[in-house]
């Protein structure tokens, strides 16, 4: 069978497909990285947010395609991840064909549990190799596994391995290279023996069911009696055969279940009961606990990490470290990126003549690329830390400790780190939600992450508070400015948590998978794997989110720079040329330039849009100039500051602490009433708007990417805009009523 398979695939000009499969936490991904090196790519399976990893395995005789299947506890799918595995192994997945070889990875420390899935997978009769990973750890802990006996039991070649050591991985590579065409009969003898121990009625029923399966599904290969047992126990109807309209099978299964109930046999647990019993009784042949065996040896650190005092203290230190790193350590690298981008812009600016194309390249394309690259250091650093936590086993402990707090708003402990990262930036925060298995939990966390006050809002707060909120003490020691900043953060946190509760009670009700997670044994993290995976995630961000961010940047550039006004340009040039001839008019020249910029902005599409929506935003206290700022800050929130600087004709390089800009804001008068446009109330209204609004195209792009649909980013933009408008509306109108 194997030979013919390889032949058909080689004739299709594609290399044989090897699938890596096994329980979660068995070290599968480390092995995958060792086998493929950097020759792999990640993506999503169509329609679901399940990560698909495909790589190339280059061997002396032949090349193979390697696919890393999501971690699975059972062949009966319980989660979207497991459904993908089920569908691939049963040849039901549209974009992935049935693998030609299975590389079943087992955790040697926890062999019995791992054998549950392994024996199920072997019954599919796909040529397989079994890899006993973390062999060294098991050996040190006094677990001795007899490989010869295990091979006899499973009927396929078994290898001991430590996926972190390349030498042992070589061994597996060689075997695949040389012995691929050797036929095996997985589980052939042991299955017969197992079956003879089943209760008589179970034997009889599986026999009947498997005959029907053989007749109705001639394509279904493998051990159909095992399949029949699985179908009988499938109380959730998750098996792909239940999705078909095959009434005969459904009826037969119902008959069998009723009959088993009559005989007092629990059909729901029949497969698990029989299989675990079989594994336990057989395991005596190949697992031996030596005298130095220690049951919970690799869990000793839990005394510290889950300790109410030491554990919490350690957690606080670690979290502040991460926070610090995203906030400040990434800064020098981010500055370095901006430095290069600025220099590149200047270089292009000075070498090419003025033209629309140059403007597009400078302000649209390079600025757009810059918007993407600027996130790279933060994302890489965050994923590096996440990698260390996941690999060492600490992540599960953090989720264990924090679950109680997060469950109050309907989330789980795993949402904590993504939300915390969102204080620095929602992008890495949303990417970090990949560690949440439950789809509804994850979606809920993604949807509220942009409400958490990110660092890009800080310039806006600084500008508004600095210019408009008086620096006075309340009750003697509270600075009003500080209190104002604090209340913005509190507003952001409470809104996020309220929305989480709301979402979890309405359209994200319930759980998609049971809330259970494993606390894996502590291990020393593997630097190479972590660096590779951090790089993978960062690369994916650049490719996929980058393309969307890039496009929106160009659209925004167009909105701010068009339509052109040739007459005004002409006038400007004439006046400019006049001034240039006289060097002493330098000051006037800059004033003229500023005025020109302001004029262009006012008459651009963005300016017109700002004026069009003025009737709406008047209730929030915003005039059209602030509206321009809000429209252009869709590129990134901090752009508000530089846009306002252009609108108010102050130095273009103004930052949030610039005195000129603050002065300009304070003195700005309304043309109709002559009163100041900016009052402290307007400042607060603007800040509230920025806390609640989804003013960030990169966030929307990343949400589109992570949820693989436009539905959720649009929903996010919609609900946050609504929140922002109503929030500012209430603040401004209430404030006005109270006389501020």
């Amino acid at each position, binding site marked *: 069978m194997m030979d013919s398979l390889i032949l058909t695939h080689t004739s299709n000009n594609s290399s044989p497909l090897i699938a890596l499969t096994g329980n979660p936490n068995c070290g599968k991904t480390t092995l995958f990285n060792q086998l493929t090196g950097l020759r792999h790519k990640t993506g999503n399976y169509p329609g679901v947010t399940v990560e698909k990893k495909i790589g190339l395995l280059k061997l002396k005789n032949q090349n193979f395609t390697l696919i890393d299947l999501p971690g699975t506890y059972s062949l009966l799918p319980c989660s979207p991840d497991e459904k993908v595995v089920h569908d691939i192994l049963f040849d039901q997945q549209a974009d992935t064909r049935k693998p030609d070889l299975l590389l079943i990875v087992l955790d040697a420390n*926890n062999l019995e549990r791992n054998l549950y899935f392994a024996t199920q997978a072997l019954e599919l009769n796909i040529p397989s190799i079994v890899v006993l990973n973390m062999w060294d750890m098991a050996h040190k802990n006094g677990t001795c596994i007899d490989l010869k006996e295990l091979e006899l039991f499973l009927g396929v070649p078994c290898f001991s391995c430590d996926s972190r050591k390349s030498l042992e991985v070589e061994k597996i590579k060689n075997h695949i290279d040389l012995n691929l065409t050797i036929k095996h009969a997985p589980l052939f003898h042991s299955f017969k023996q197992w079956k003879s121990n089943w209760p008589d009625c179970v034997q009889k029923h599986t026999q009947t069911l498997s005959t029907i399966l053989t007749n109705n599904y001639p394509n279904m290969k493998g051990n159909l009696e095992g399949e029949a047992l699985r179908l009988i126990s499938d109380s959730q109807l998750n098996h792909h055969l239940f999705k078909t309209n095959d009434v005969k099978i459904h009826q037969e299964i119902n008959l069998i279940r009723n009959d088993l109930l009559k005989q007092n046999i629990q059909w729901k647990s029949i497969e698990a009961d029989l299989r675990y019993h079989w594994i336990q009784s057989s395991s005596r042949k190949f697992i031996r606990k030596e005298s130095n065996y220690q049951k919970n040896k690799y869990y000793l650190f839990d005394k510290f990490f889950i300790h109410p005092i030491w554990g919490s203290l350690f957690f606080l230190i670690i979290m502040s470290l991460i926070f610090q790193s995203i906030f400040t350590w990434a800064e020098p690298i981010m500055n370095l990126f901006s430095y290069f981008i600025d220099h590149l812009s200047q270089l292009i600016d000075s070498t090419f003549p003025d033209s629309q194309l140059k403007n597009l390249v400078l302000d649209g394309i390079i600025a757009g690329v810059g918007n993407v690259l600027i996130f790279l250091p933060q994302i890489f650093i965050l994923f590096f830390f996440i990698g260390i936590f996941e690999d060492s086993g600490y992540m599960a402990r953090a989720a264990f400790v924090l679950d109680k707090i997060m469950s109050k708003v309907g989330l789980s402990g795993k949402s904590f780190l993504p939300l915390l990262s969102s204080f620095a930036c929602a992008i890495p925060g949303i990417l970090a939600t990949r560690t949440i298995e439950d789809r509804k939990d994850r979606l809920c966390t993604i949807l509220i992450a942009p409400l958490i006050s990110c660092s890009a809002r800080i310039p806006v707060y600084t500008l508004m508070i600095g210019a408009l909120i008086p620096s006075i003490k309340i009750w003697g020691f509270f600075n009003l400015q500080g209190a104002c900043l604090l209340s913005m953060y509190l507003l952001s946190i409470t809104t996020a948590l309220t929305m989480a509760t709301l979402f979890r009670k309405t359209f994200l009700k319930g759980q998609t998978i049971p809330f259970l997670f494993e606390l894996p044994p502590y291990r020393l993290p593997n630097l190479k794997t972590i660096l590779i995976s951090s790089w993978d995630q960062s690369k994916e961000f650049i490719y996929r989110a980058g393309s969307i961010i890039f496009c929106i940047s160009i659209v925004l550039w167009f909105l701010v720079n068009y339509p052109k006004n040739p007459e005004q340009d002409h006038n400007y040039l004439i006046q400019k040329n006049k001034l240039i001839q006289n060097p002493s008019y330098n000051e006037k020249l800059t004033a003229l330039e500023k005025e020109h910029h302001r004029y262009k902005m006012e008459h651009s599409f963005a300016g017109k849009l700002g004026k069009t929506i003025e009737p709406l935003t008047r209730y929030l206290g915003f005039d059209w100039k602030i509206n321009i700022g809000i429209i252009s800050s869709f590129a990134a929130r901090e752009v508000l500051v530089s846009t306002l600087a252009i609108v108010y004709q102050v130095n273009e390089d103004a930052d949030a602490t610039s005195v000129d800009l603050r002065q300009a804001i304070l003195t700005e008068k309304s043309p109709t009433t002559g009163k100041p446009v900016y009052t402290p109330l307007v400042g607060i209204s603007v800040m509230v708007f920025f806390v609640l609004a989804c003013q960030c195209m990169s966030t929307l792009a990343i949400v589109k990417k992570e949820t693989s649909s436009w539905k959720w980013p649009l929903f996010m933009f919609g609900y946050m805009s609504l929140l922002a408008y109503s929030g500012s509306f209430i603040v401004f109108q209430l404030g006005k009523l109270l006389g501020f």
Partner: protein
Amino acid sequence: MQYLLRINFNKASMNTNICKLTELKPNQSGTVHSFLGDNHHLHSRLRELGFTKGCWVTYIRRAPLGDPIELAIYESHIAIRKIDAMNILIELNI
């Protein structure tokens, strides 16, 4: 269905050897007896993880805030919320 299970549980609790998993003390072990309730999704996941009748389970500890709890089954440690763990009946083999 729910009613029937409740009757079963009452019968079970009369037998002093059977208790809810959450009633165990830290580091106390027992064997799985049966599941309560109708969360079949959870039950099948538990079975896959090895919670089959007669299998040894150890209650390791509670989280510092009281929930969830940590169990050991085979060689793995599992975190589970109390509300779910309450539905696992354990037989104490004294």
